[in-house]
């Protein structure tokens, strides 16, 4: 799962390179190399958070799911927000700090949306599962919503183009769109093996079920 976690942004990177790097967006032209660097920084952040969790606190996604998730999103949060805020749209009207603020706001709002989605798809509801659901949706929000929030703010058209129609234009939008969809689709597929009776530890508590496996696959 760790491998999966790390390889996912990387694979989307490859995808992106084969895409249409030449197109320019209105706000900022970003070269493929730069996009690659941004994504590798994200991946490194992810790896660091895993390493910290594993070596300093000796927890893993399997043994302590929500603590680890907490670590991931706390470590990854500044990385993602600070990185993506650099690519904000209308950079003359919108200051860097404002973009960061938007990102933070997006984190919370996105967490709500993600939690709704997860619960609708069958994640258990209850005080017992609250912490894992919250942490998971924070993390998902970090990958899915926050970049877009930092870059676009509240521009409905852009949001819709990216998430409802999946028609990104330009490198920046690909940078946002591909990891987000990768995370969503990966987590969706990650929920499939839950009912199987392999009796693996990460399956053991079906209550956590969808909550655990989704991050583990993204």
């Amino acid at each position, binding site marked *: 799962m760790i491998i999966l976690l790390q390889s996912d942004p990387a694979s989307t990177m490859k995808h992106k390179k084969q895409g249409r790097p030449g197109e320019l967006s209105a706000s900022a032209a970003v070269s493929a190399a730069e996009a690659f660097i941004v994504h590798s920084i994200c991946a490194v952040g992810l790896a660091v958070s895993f390493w910290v969790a594993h070596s300093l606190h000796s927890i893993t996604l399997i043994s302590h799911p929500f603590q680890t998730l907490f670590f991931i999103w706390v470590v990854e949060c500044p990385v993602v927000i600070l990185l993506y805020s650099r690519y904000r749209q209308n950079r003359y009207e919108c200051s860097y700090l404002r973009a960061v603020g938007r990102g933070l706001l997006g984190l919370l709002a996105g967490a709500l949306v993600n939690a709704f989605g997860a619960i*609708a798809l*069958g994640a258990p509801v209850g005080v017992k599962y609250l912490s894992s659901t919250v942490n998971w949706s924070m993390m998902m929000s970090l990958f899915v919503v926050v970049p877009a929030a930092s870059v676009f703010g509240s521009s*409905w*058209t852009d949001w*819709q183009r990216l998430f*409802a129609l999946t028609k990104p234009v330009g490198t920046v939008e690909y940078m946002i769109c591909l990891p987000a969809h990768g995370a969503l689709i990966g987590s969706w597929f990650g929920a499939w093996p839950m*009912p*199987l*009776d392999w009796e693996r530890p990460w399956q053991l508590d079906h*209550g956590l079920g969808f909550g655990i496996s989704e991050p583990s696959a993204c």
Partner: protein
Amino acid sequence: MAGVIIQMLGLLIFVFGFFPVKPALSGFRYNSVSVLVFSSILSEPKHCGPESFCAPGFDSIQNNSAGNLPPDKLRSLYQELSGVPTSFDKLIVMVVDGLPAEFVLGKDGKPLRADLREAMPYTQSLLANGMAIGFHAKAAPPTVTMPRLKAMVSGAIGGFLDVAFNFNTQALLDDNLLYQFFKIGWKMVMLGDETWLKLFPGLFMRHDGVSSFFVSISIADMNSYGGSLLFVAAHIYSALHLSCELLKLTSNMCRIPMLQVKDTVQVDQNVSRHLSDELSRYDWDLLILHYLGLDHVGHIGGRNSILMAPKLKEMDDVVKMIHTSRILNQMNNHGKTLLVVVSDHGMTDNGNHGGSSYEETDSLALFIGLKNDVPTSIQDTVYQIDITSTLALLFGVPIPKNNAGVQISEIFKHLADDKKLRALELNSWQLLRLLQAQLPGVSCNEVSGISKCNGSLEKMFCCLYMNAAFLHNSWMSKAVSRLKHGEEYNTAVGAYNEFLRIASEWLSRRITDKPVNLLAFGVVAMLTSCLILLSLLYLTCKEDFGRERICLSNFENSSMHAWHLDEAFTFGVVFVLVISMGSSSMVEEEQYIWHFVASTLTLLLLRKAIQSLKFEGAQSFFSLFKGQNKTSGFQTSSMALFLVSGRILRGWHQGGVNWTHLPDISKWLEQAGGDYIKAIQLVTGILVMTLSLISLSTLEVNRKLVKVIGFCFLTPGFLVLHHILKHQGSMLAPSSYNATMLVQTVYLVLGFATLGTVVALPWLSSLSTSKTCSYYNSYVGPSDPVELRNKSLLVEFTNSLFVIGWAYICSCGQQNKQWVEIAAVYYMGMAGHYALGNSNSLATIDVAGAFIGISSHSTVLSGILMFIITYASPMLAILSMVMYISVKSSNYLALPSYMDSGELLKSMLCLPCLVPLSLNSILLVAYTVILILMRNHLFVWSVFSPKYLYVCAITVCVYIGVSVVAATVAYTYSVVVFRRTIRASAVMEDT
């Protein structure tokens, strides 16, 4: 008209494409079972004579003469041939229905819970003193009474379809223990469950049967007619409560009314009342007692019901009574008695049974009266079928021919070594004979030395048997070592046990020979019908495409042909389902898949709704698009609402097999208490009624008609409310009879109202609006009985709202393709089916709910009710197609008028009927193929076969639903057309 004919022809083709399959399907197992029986009889024309006591492969000494011997001579002949001394003369079999062995023996070697030990003090003391020896007897699924009884007396793993006949038992024709006893002239007495009488008609000298759900009024001892009436009412009432229980809606505490205590007690009192009389008589050889009360207690209150301890105590008293009067007291000249306490199956924590979990298959085999001085601390696990051969050997009768069980060796401990070996030999002969009947290649002739056993199946069995026989012979030849437990003795026993174990496992796991031709024909027929359906579907879709292109070519670009995500998903779901059916755990937990798929589809549709929101949202300041934007905004919000309600529905029941213990809403409600449940039931009832009234009144029909229809459907609604108010809480006895009356009234009113509306409405209503109106009503009609019939099932309301809401949402989304929507409704129905607490295990069928409001035992009526309750959700989904069509029909009316009326009907009816049919046919074919592939899988009987039964039932459900829909729409349409032509001709005449 041509269109109608084409449509009818198409439907006929489906029907004919499908229905030849049916006999092949149902014959599938049943035939194969009977084929096995016949083949084993045919291969041994000598019948079950003394040849059981000869080695297979050699000619029987007294070929046919044994069949004609008088019973007592036969008995002595058997005694002589058997070589295993019979230590008992009389047998008492006490069947305690549904008693898990865990209650008597504990689990996994751990000591018993204190409360259970106190509940059965006498039995526990017997076990502790070594007077009794108990086993966990693993029962084979399906764990329902009749197949288990068959297994116990014949030793064979029965056909799976037995479960379907559980409530309508036929006589058992196979060779069995009781028949063998009968042949040697035993006199048999049976007290208890009627199933025995149906299985073995005419075998019993005296009997007093009780029925599982309805104690027949003809029981002579009933005090008065009133009493018996009360009694029947009590049963119905308990059935009512059982249904609540099965849906876990009623709290544990408030569900102990005095009547039910009486009910669970009375069934057993009817058994026990003759017991002391029978125990004092000595004219019988076999006494069968079948106690149903414990099973009833389980159904009502689950394993931990507070009625359980008294019931166990009662059973303990029976054991004590028998033991003190017969076994301890056998110094007289009436011979020795063996008491065998068995249970046919266990029960889950909720008290259900039918599936294959440990709790359900953990049944008891307790032998009391054996000479066993040392208390056995470790209880082995044996198989339920082992009881047969053990009893047959103990009493010196031939082992029933189809027995696949192995004798329980602990029972024969007291015998001398050669007798023990003889018993093993007899059992081996019988199994080898059965093997020979099933595998013609098994023929063991030359006795050689010991060899390594490998190679083909036939060779391996043969070699294992020959090894055992060789060791046995060599041990026999050395008279010196016969006196003590020698090395050779142990190796011989080991060899026999190995052969027996392997042969038994193979025999009980083996799928019996299937008639290959029938099977192939069935698969081919299903495949063709599936292909026909699919091609028809494809053609219709193409046609629709073409038409839409003509109509909309001006407005839309070629994006119509793009393969949208939701369509791809809908299509992919079928493959996902097919693949998931190949995995046993996916079958067990299928509800997760359905829910996951359904909600993902909703999410995708939500995404689509947002897509369309964009175009208007971007220019929301243009007042021009305001109305349209509102529509998609409404669509989006309703999707979200739908997601939420779907999640609630899923949370209602933690279904499946492995995770049922997790909390869900129904368990929470159960804990909250009866008042909450009552309140929620009332609220939902009123909500449903108001909603339907509102939607009725929005129709533009004349007031009078609406009032009449509204009244028709309100009456049962109020009756249901009245029932909930009056009877749900109070547990008073006399009201339960009224309750039955009430329920019957509701059925009647609903039935007539529905029929009347559907038939009469097209005629009465004004021409212009008649179509929509009648569609609507015919929808409300069929769906109402479905939801109201399960009136104690609160969930039903939620579900129906859910489906109706879905249908509305679907019909709002104009840009979705029709077949996607229909498929979505179908998925919805399936998701609802599992959300209502059904699963692919037979244990979840709401048997008790089927007896609501039926005052006499009728297999057909209760079967229909059971079907409706189980398949309420898919049925409702399919029936909502009627409304769907009515909403959609407005689209068609806008189409150019060059289409003639027949074609209109065809286009309306085609997709809604075709899509569920073809979806279902794909699943049916796929599952049949999977079942054939999986026939040697370990879980074939426990997981795959029940699922197959469900698949067949859902097929029937789809047929019924689709034909109802088609008939309603066609009827309404033809009436409208007829009236229109009449009016047209009238106008013509006027002018």
